[in-house]
């Protein structure tokens, strides 16, 4: 048999039909659904008298525009149109008989955090969701794609996706990371090197010692941002850490089925002599704690660097960099560590898991948020929140002066009331720094949870290593 990559293996195991021209129907094992990109898809099913083909493989949770304030059970905390979307999901989940975690359920949270937490996401699966950060699930060695609403409807109706196979790209991070450097710094640094279009048309497999050393949560952070690098999916081969994470989760297999699953999962790796269409290698020790300075996730620099000027770039990037600098209100040559912030947001599907909160708490313990800084922590799920309370992290956050919220997407995309005002500058652990992403005119700097915590204390972008 010819050597295969991990992507090749998962792909081959899911082709339900292949047309002469190479167009395939890829069978989908898990379909995750949220309130923003699904109403039109369910409406489409109703209009055509179609049903959900595999309701047992379909899981829904509202997350994008639910409020995260403690009083959210009060319907008045939601705008009319948000409420209509959430109610539509309530109704669609019931009418079509799919698994559902309503806002009132402690297991509710960001769809990409809930899936792994509940054991829905398992190695070797195909996972889709009407959300680009579905790439997160690739951390389990699952082929996970973001899809549009028409495709959501297509998967609901047929449990397949019309696909052509992408190309294979290997991103290897060799050696060890230095202290203070995290999964977020890896994934941002990779985008800094490849650019936001570098992965277009590829499925990325992340490998190398620094990736193997990461926990499952760190791996999810890395794969989460594969999409910011242009790749539709990111993958990490499953290993003992993966199996240990999955074991005992509510929807993971048990007993003999577990053994059978494990036997197959252990075959899920790229063969030594597999063919790669593109290879990118970074040395773990070369990666520094980074922040973004501009309005594209590729605008990444070590925290020790200065704000660049447009003339540092070439081609279309010259104008884009100038536009970014204007929008961000930054002067070239300013040390990034002198840039003052107004707000800190710790949360999102990139960095809203328990280890992220632990990392932030380690920096915040016994410290105070600088006067005048608005700081909030939004756990990725109700269960993450409960665990953080049990571990005493919530007390650390509250004593430091952080708002301690309920689970949801919150200020990652600011569809709920958590938004930046024009000109407000935010240290954020989310994944997109686009113009207006966190609120019209809002200025976003992306970084790791530890870096965001450090910024909350000093009121500036800060090198977390100085606080360790």
């Amino acid at each position, binding site marked *: 048999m010819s050597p295969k990559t991990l992507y090749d293996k998962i792909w081959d195991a899911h082709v*339900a039909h292949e047309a002469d021209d190479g167009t395939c129907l890829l069978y989908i094992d898990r379909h995750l659904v949220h309130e923003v*990109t699904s109403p039109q898809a369910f409406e489409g099913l109703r209009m055509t008298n179609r049903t959900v083909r595999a309701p047992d493989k379909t899981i829904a949770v509202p997350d994008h525009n639910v409020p995260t304030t403690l009083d959210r059970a009060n319907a008045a905390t939601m705008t009319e149109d*948000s409420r209509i979307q959430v109610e539509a999901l309530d109704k669609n989940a019931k009418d079509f008989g799919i698994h559902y975690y309503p806002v009132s359920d402690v297991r509710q949270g960001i769809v990409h955090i809930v899936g792994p937490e509940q054991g829905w996401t398992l190695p070797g699966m195909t996972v889709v969701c009407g959300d*680009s950060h579905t790439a997160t699930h690739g951390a389990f060695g699952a082929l996970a794609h973001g899809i549009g609403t*028409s495709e959501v409807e297509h998967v609901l109706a047929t449990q397949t996706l019309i696909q052509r196979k992408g190309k294979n790209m290997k991103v290897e991070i060799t050696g060890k990371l230095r202290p203070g450097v995290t999964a977020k710094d890896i994934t941002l640094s990779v985008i800094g090197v490849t650019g*936001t*279009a570098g992965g277009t048309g590829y499925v990325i497999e992340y490998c190398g010692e620094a990736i193997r050393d990461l926990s499952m949560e760190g791996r999810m952070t890395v794969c989460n941002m594969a999409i910011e690098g242009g790749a539709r999916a990111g993958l990490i081969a499953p290993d003992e850490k993966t199996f240990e994470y999955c074991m005992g989760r509510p929807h993971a297999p048990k007993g003999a089925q577990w053994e059978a699953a494990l036997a197959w999962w252990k075959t899920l790796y790229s063969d030594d002599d597999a063919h790669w269409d593109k290879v990118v290698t970074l040395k773990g020790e070369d990666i520094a704690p980074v922040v973004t300075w501009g309005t594209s996730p590729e605008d990444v620099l070590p925290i020790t660097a200065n704000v660049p000027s447009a003339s540092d770039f070439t081609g279309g990037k010259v104008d884009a960099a100038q536009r970014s600098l204007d929008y961000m209100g930054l002067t070239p040559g300013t040390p990034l560590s002198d840039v003052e912030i107004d707000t800190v947001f710790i949360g999102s599907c990139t960095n809203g898991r328990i280890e992220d909160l632990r990392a932030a708490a380690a920096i915040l313990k016994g410290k105070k948020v600088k006067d005048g800084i608005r700081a909030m922590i939004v756990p990725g799920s109700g269960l993450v929140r409960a665990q953080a309370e049990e571990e005493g992290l919530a007390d650390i956050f509250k004593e430091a002066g952080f708002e301690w919220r309920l689970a949801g997407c919150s200020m990652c995309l600011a569809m709920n009331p958590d938004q930046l005002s024009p000109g407000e500058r935010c240290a954020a652990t989310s994944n*997109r720094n686009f113009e207006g992403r966190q609120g019209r005119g809002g200025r976003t700097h992306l970084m790791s949870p530890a870096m965001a915590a450090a910024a909350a204390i000093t009121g500036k972008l800060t090198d977390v290593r100085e606080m360790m």
Partner: protein
Amino acid sequence: MEKFEKLSGIAAPMPMINIDTDMIIPKQFLKTIKRSGLGVNLFDEMRYDDDGNEIPDFVLNKPQYRETQILIAGDNFGCGSSREHAPWAIKDFGIRCVIAPSFADIFYNNCFKNGILPIALPQEQVDILMKEAEKGANARVEVDLEAQTVSTSDGEVFAFEVDAFKKHCLLEGLDDIGLTMEKAASIDAFETKAEQTRPWV
């Protein structure tokens, strides 16, 4: 789905790279449960000021571009979120074709599901079309999907690539789901086999 065969229309120049889906349709407009009506909010934050007044400098606000049917843009168009609201807004405005050196993957796919033709052309050719588009209503760009060509009013013709299946669906206005359902036997067979080999799924 609306068919796409030929189009001759006004092309608007947007010479920016990395035009993301948050720019195309900001999140506050994602709260709809319908597919229609998003055209007025296309490029909302570039198109209107804080009071909701049109910003006259923005290309689609200029008199000669109000009837734009073709958008000419920079590299990596449509990057960012998977929101299909982006192509819905583009279509609702009346734009049926976007030409750029490259597209983000999910956006590219979403276009075909909505009767929009995204065309990737080499940078030099996009540069020529960008110049052409700057002439405004005096220059109509012609797109022929069957022949896979884009032509300028000066008679320059550029050929483009498009996946044969996607082309077929767009030309005929076919519904993907209906087509896939014709292959239900294959899906049934796959499921039966998977129940044996991967029963835990």
